[in-house]
């Protein structure tokens, strides 16, 4: 197991190193941030001085080398735009994104799994058909549209929910204040509709497949109560692929809340990264992508570990 973990860590480090190089290179090639930062009436001398101040006058190799040396000390450089350490800015914005992703994911699981089970037991009942209809809609409707419709209905027409921003924050999250919760409702809904539908459908398919298998028939023949069969024997085996998907989807949620954050002016990392790419703020883009890839690596690792608990066959 130790060897396995060490191996995984080595691979992860390699992945992150590669990502840093690629992102650094792309941002280096993308354009000159100084050109965008200084006003048009700045002189050529000002441009040269600003480039030197930000270290952009050096060659790519020298810049990347300096980045690697600093990064090995945990310093990913200062943002060109904000002048603050890039990692600090990313972490400052991370709670806002994480709370959206976590709450949306929990909501999707809590609602999606039971609904999936219900619709798998009696796939042809009216209830199942209604559930499946809405899940199809949930998977097909674009996030942007859902968000705008929610804003139109609940903010503009009814005026009951705030259209944008994050509410009062307590202990890093807005989920503990009433004002915060009101601000959370629409972004969380927008974000979870797709996930909910996806989890629901996966649960259903998985359950239907498992319920067909011989050991389920055997259990039924032995007289095991239906409830125990469904919620213990069958569900447990359905969970295996589901956990993988939930893991990947959670990473996706964190990394791609961009659209939702833009619609609701949510001060998370998605909005930060878009702004930073547009202003060529390389330190932030690199820091953000490193943090996100670390997150993906960590989630994958966690999923693998969880697997071994759910499915003894893959135990190392």
């Amino acid at each position: 197991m130790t060897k396995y973990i060490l191996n995984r860590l080595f691979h992860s480090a390699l992945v992150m190193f590669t990502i840093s190089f690629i992102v650094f290179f792309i941002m280096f090639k993308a354009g000159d941030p100084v050109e965008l930062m200084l006003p048009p009436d700045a002189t050529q001398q000002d441009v040269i001085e600003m480039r030197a101040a930000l270290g952009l006058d050096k060659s790519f190799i020298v810049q990347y080398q300096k980045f690697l040396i600093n990064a090995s000390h945990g310093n990913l450089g200062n943002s060109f735009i904000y002048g603050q350490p890039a990692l600090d800015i990313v972490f400052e914005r991370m709670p806002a994104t994480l709370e959206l992703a976590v709450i949306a994911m929990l909501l999707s699981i809590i609602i999606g799994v039971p609904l999936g089970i219900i619709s798998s037991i009696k796939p042809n009942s009216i209830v199942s058909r209604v559930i499946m209809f809405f899940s199809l809609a949930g998977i097909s409707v674009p996030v942007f549209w859902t968000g705008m419709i929610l804003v139109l209905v609940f903010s503009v027409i009814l005026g009951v929910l705030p259209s944008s921003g994050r509410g009062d924050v307590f202990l890093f999250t807005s989920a503990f204040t009433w004002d915060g919760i009101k601000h959370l409702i629409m972004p969380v809904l927008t974000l979870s509709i797709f996930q909910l539908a996806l989890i629901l459908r996966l649960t259903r398919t998985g359950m239907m497949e498992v319920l067909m298998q011989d050991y389920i028939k055997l259990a039924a023949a032995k007289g095991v109560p239906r409830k125990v069969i469904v919620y213990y024997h069958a569900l447990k085996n359905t969970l295996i692929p589901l956990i993988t998907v939930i893991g990947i989807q959670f990473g996706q949620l964190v990394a791609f809340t961009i659209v939702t954050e833009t619609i609701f002016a949510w001060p998370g990392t998605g909005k930060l990264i878009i702004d930073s790419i547009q202003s060529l703020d390389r330190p932030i883009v690199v820091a953000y992508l490193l943090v996100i890839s670390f997150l993906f690596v960590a989630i994958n690792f966690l999923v693998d570990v969880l697997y071994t608990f759910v499915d003894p066959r893959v135990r190392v």
Partner: protein
Amino acid sequence: MRKFIIGLATVALLCSAVNAKTLTVGVASDAGSMDPYAHNETATNSILSNIFDALIAFDKDIKTHPALAVSWTNPEPTVWLMKLREDVKFHNGSAFNADDVIFSFDRVKNWDKSGFKGKVSMIDSVTKIDDYTVKIVTLKPYPILLRKLTYISILDKETLEGKSDQWIGLNPVGTGPYKITSWSKGDHLKLDANLDYWQGLGVYDKVVFKPLSNNATRVAAMLSNAVDIIDRVPVVDVNRIKNNDKLNFFVQPGLRLIYLQMDQDRDKSPYIKSHDGKNPLKDVRVRRALYYGINEDAIVKFIMKGFAKPAAQLSPEAVFGYDPSIKRVEYNPEKAKALLAEAGYPDGFEIVLDSPNNRYINDSQIAQAVASSLAKIGIKVKVNATPKSTFFKETGKLNTSFFLIGWASSDGDASSILDGVVHTHDADKGYGRYNRGRFSSPKADKLIEESAGIMDPKARLKVLQEAQRIALVDEQCFIPLHYQVDIYASNKKVKFEPRTDSRIWAFDIK
């Protein structure tokens, strides 16, 4: 007794809630930093103008008037004596005096990341005469000094000395009408009234700036009454705002000109295909043909939905240097064709028009419209729209033949576009940095350089106008398209007047 106290507390709470007037402003872009020297761009300048003062301020019509400097004399052409206001305190209680002015000018000039060096490049020295008088010496006679001074926010020496860039970037200490209470980047900036402000108190006790960068989000916030004012109303939503009887709607002519630059330097331009292999844009008749051949009225009507003003010259009317005698030529494709034929291109030529697609209002659509206009006079234009980061990089390398770009005369003076774009490119003298078509007219250059030293406004105006006439009318250095306008919306509780410099200055809002 207990009930009484609770009752009292409730009443007190209610009173304070009623009395504390809050103004919430939804802005398209957040401030980049709380350090007033970090970014010279409109959104940051606008927000920070509520926190900081400069020696001189612009009024809403971009005319200069006294701020932290009460009065000044100009005993010699290069020497300015400025008398400072004596009753001013910074937000942390520290007193304002000449040392702060000297500290500020030193930092703006010498801090390696300062974005405002261009505003003080002509200042040779700033020295203290006494606690409330400073002497500013310029390198040459400098008629636009006062306009430049409006950009230099005054910082507190006692507070800032020895502080890191990071600290200064988060902790603004100014003398302005509002002081910071909290800033969460991308979410809100909360300000409280500065009770000691030297101009007295504004109507609002609290001001909140909310960055709402998505257009639809900003409009939804206005429609749902979550904010009191929004800036940059997208033209597609104008009717929704206009037809809402709970909202006011404002249009303010801006300072930004949208125009086309042309490669007028190289004999062979990289993105032009002509029958003789030469660069037709070197011929003034061809340049003029393009001007006649673009249907700007249609662009304003269909692409800008009426929210732009066709431009006849380099800067709008509010800017010093405007020449009322220059009018835009009428759209005339016949004349354009005749001019092309005269120049030896009766069948036109092929050219690529570069344009940013995320910098100016509807930028790439304008470029498309220019292309379809020019198609009618036989010029095949291919539009190459790219994000601003690519666009400015490529045009900076002159990897272009024809491009759409904007220029804001943010000093309110024509010298900025004349120096920066019209004058022959000359890195040593600091002229023509944005002259990426490499237009060059020795006659205009001479006038531009001469105008920099004329202290008499009337005489200077004449020279600026003459320089523009030569460059634009005689030589057709660029093709002006239109001036952008700023569009705002507010609810009816708020009395708001837009400013020419596009800033939202809460102190004036009632």
